[in-house]
């Protein structure tokens, strides 16, 4: 007769939104292994319907507090594709700067506030601030500069204001860009602290190969999805219009968030998936961080998503620095660009901190959203999280229950789930 265990974590802490971990093992047989998503849906696909297309980005960004810039970006890409607007290089650069700011903000929040307590044996950032003040202070300073980027470009770091079809509502002034340049330069030391601190952390060894997916755009590290196709580590390359064939949504009874599978089963998206598919595109400083963290780009260990977020924090800092320099070198603004048609269908795909995000709209002849579909990164990871749990649980059955529970919590946190977003 094998071991038995029953684990029930109600409202997992240090993640965005409400989720429960429920595991049952009877006589060595895993009978239940669920990440229940109990957040109530807000039905954003319904809320968007009937609203004017130029409101879409401001409504869509309300899906998520943490990745609101990502939602605004995917939304504006979908609207611009529908209305035949093609942003030029400067508009794209300004939006890339803002996205880099959000990546840095989101990754550092996760690393410094939500994950670091696991790595250093604290229950939250409060005791961590006493035991490891250098981590918390570095994270706070990095978050501040990241938030400054988003406030400068889009007015707020939560719920960006300035995203309009064909233009941005504010073009940063040279003095604002110089302040960002100085802030980013000062933050370099804090970034190195982050790399050094996480280079010393050992995570559980868990190998479960899965297909990794990311939207790879030409000539850049995957972030903005412009001209991108969906690539996977199984060698699949899928054009945006066929996204539903690689991101297949389905409903399950224990989750208010839909699950997603690829043609080959559960997929992973997010920082580790992007590093898997585009490590050679990393900025030299981010590549150095990859080496310092001894992160294998083809890792099958989901805990390595944490190290990949550290690498991408360096990447986002480098991208933001380069964008600020380029915007300073040529302060000319771009836009507004007028629509070339009144109605149409558009797909916006971007890489947000947690993975591939799709917004797909039909805009009617009245200029209003007639149909909206949003596919959220955390929803894409849910099936993989549960598959990982099924591999992890049997390896820890001989250990005390608290240890198994904590390992499961850490596993879910490693994905940095955004549950409100996944349910939307």
């Amino acid at each position, binding site marked *: 007769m094998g071991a038995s265990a029953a684990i029930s974590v109600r409202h997992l802490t240090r993640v965005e939104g409400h989720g429960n971990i429920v595991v049952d093992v009877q006589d060595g047989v895993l009978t239940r292994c669920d990440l229940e998503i109990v957040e109530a849906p807000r039905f954003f696909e319904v809320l968007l319907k009937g609203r004017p297309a130029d409101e879409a980005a401001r409504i869509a960004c309300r899906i998520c507090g943490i990745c609101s810039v990502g939602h605004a970006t995917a939304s504006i890409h979908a609207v611009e594709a529908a209305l035949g607007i093609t942003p030029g290089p400067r508009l794209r650069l300004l939006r890339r700067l803002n996205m880099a700011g959000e990546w840095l903000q989101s990754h550092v929040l996760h690393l410094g506030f*939500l994950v670091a307590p696991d790595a250093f044996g604290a229950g939250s950032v409060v005791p961590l601030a006493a035991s490891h003040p250098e981590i918390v202070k570095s994270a706070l300073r990095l978050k501040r500069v990241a938030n400054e980027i988003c406030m400068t470009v889009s007015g707020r770091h939560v719920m960006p*204001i300035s995203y309009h079809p064909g233009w941005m509502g504010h073009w940063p002034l040279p003095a604002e860009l110089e302040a960002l340049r100085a802030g980013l330069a000062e933050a370099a030391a804090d970034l190195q602290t982050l790399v050094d601190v996480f280079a010393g952390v050992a995570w559980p060894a868990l190998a479960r190969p899965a297909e990794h997916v990311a939207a790879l755009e030409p000539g850049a590290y995957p972030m903005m999805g412009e001209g991108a196709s969906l690539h996977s580590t199984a060698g699949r390359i899928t054009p945006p219009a066929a996204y539903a064939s690689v991101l297949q949504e389905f409903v399950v009874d224990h989750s208010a968030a839909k699950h997603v599978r690829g043609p080959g089963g559960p997929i992973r998206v997010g920082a580790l998936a992007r590093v898997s598919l585009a490590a050679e595109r990393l900025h030299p400083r981010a590549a150095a961080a990859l080496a310092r963290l001894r992160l294998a780009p083809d890792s099958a260990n989901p805990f390595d998503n944490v190290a990949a977020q550290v690498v991408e924090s360096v990447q986002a800092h480098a991208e933001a620095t380069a964008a600020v320099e380029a915007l300073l070198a040529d302060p000319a603004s771009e836009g507004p660009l007028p629509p070339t048609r009144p109605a149409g269908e558009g797909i916006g795909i971007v890489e947000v901190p947690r993975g591939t995000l799709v917004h797909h709209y039909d805009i009617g002849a009245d200029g209003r959203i007639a149909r909206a579909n949003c596919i959220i990164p955390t929803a894409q990871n849910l099936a993989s999280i549960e598959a990982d749990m099924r591999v992890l649980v049997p390896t820890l059955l001989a250990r005390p229950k608290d240890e198994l529970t904590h390992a499961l919590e850490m596993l879910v946190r490693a994905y940095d789930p955004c549950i409100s977003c996944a349910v939307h």
Partner: protein
Amino acid sequence: MNRPRVAFFSFGSCEGCQLQVLSVEDALLELLGAVEVVNFREAMDDRRDDYEIAFVEGSVVKPEDATEIRRIRNRARILVALGACACLGGVNAMRNRRAAADVAGEVYAGRQDGVFEALAASPISSVVQVDYEFRGCPIDRAEFLDAVRSLLAGTVPYTPPFAVCVQCTLRGTPCLLERGLPCVGAVARAGCEAICPAYGAPCEACRGFHDAPNFAALGDAFARAGLSRAEAAAKLQLFNDYREVRAAWERALPSPSDT
């Protein structure tokens, strides 16, 4: 001096207001020195129920939320609603115009179970008495800190009673409505420093209304700007469509569906 024990809770929302709290940055460590946070699921493992001040984000959207907010109300000496979802219903309330089963069926085709037993998306004050409302989508970080300082000092947090137009004018932003954009700042409660018009977006009244809004005059101003009165109603619908909030404006303006 004992530090007041505070807790954070969330219902149907994006948790962006709690993120604003985590993003007070320089003031975060100071704040953590002034209060004892005993429950904040998004950020910490501890979960105690001996709080004195409860900050609640999000709309009541399912029966369990109503039970939970009553439990929180019974324990908290001071209950603060954070943000548009908690104070007004926010964008969530737009779905209330359609039957809940219809909305759920559209998004979750084929789902049979009762996970989505839904209430009309409602502000916290529809279920329990709320002591203070910190407005906005999201709440403003500086305003949050000021308000918390007021609570700790035992005074009433300040909420501007006037229109967004006042702060927009002080800021020197050219009037969006005069340029033909559907801005409802004339009826909207200020406190946001009129940030949206400064970044090219019309005010959408995410803080609700000021103390003396004139909705008929807003409709007239829309008409003068070449917009329709129904477009004014459509804008107000975005954050202020919960039935008791909507009651303030719906008699003065045509149905938003007439746009």
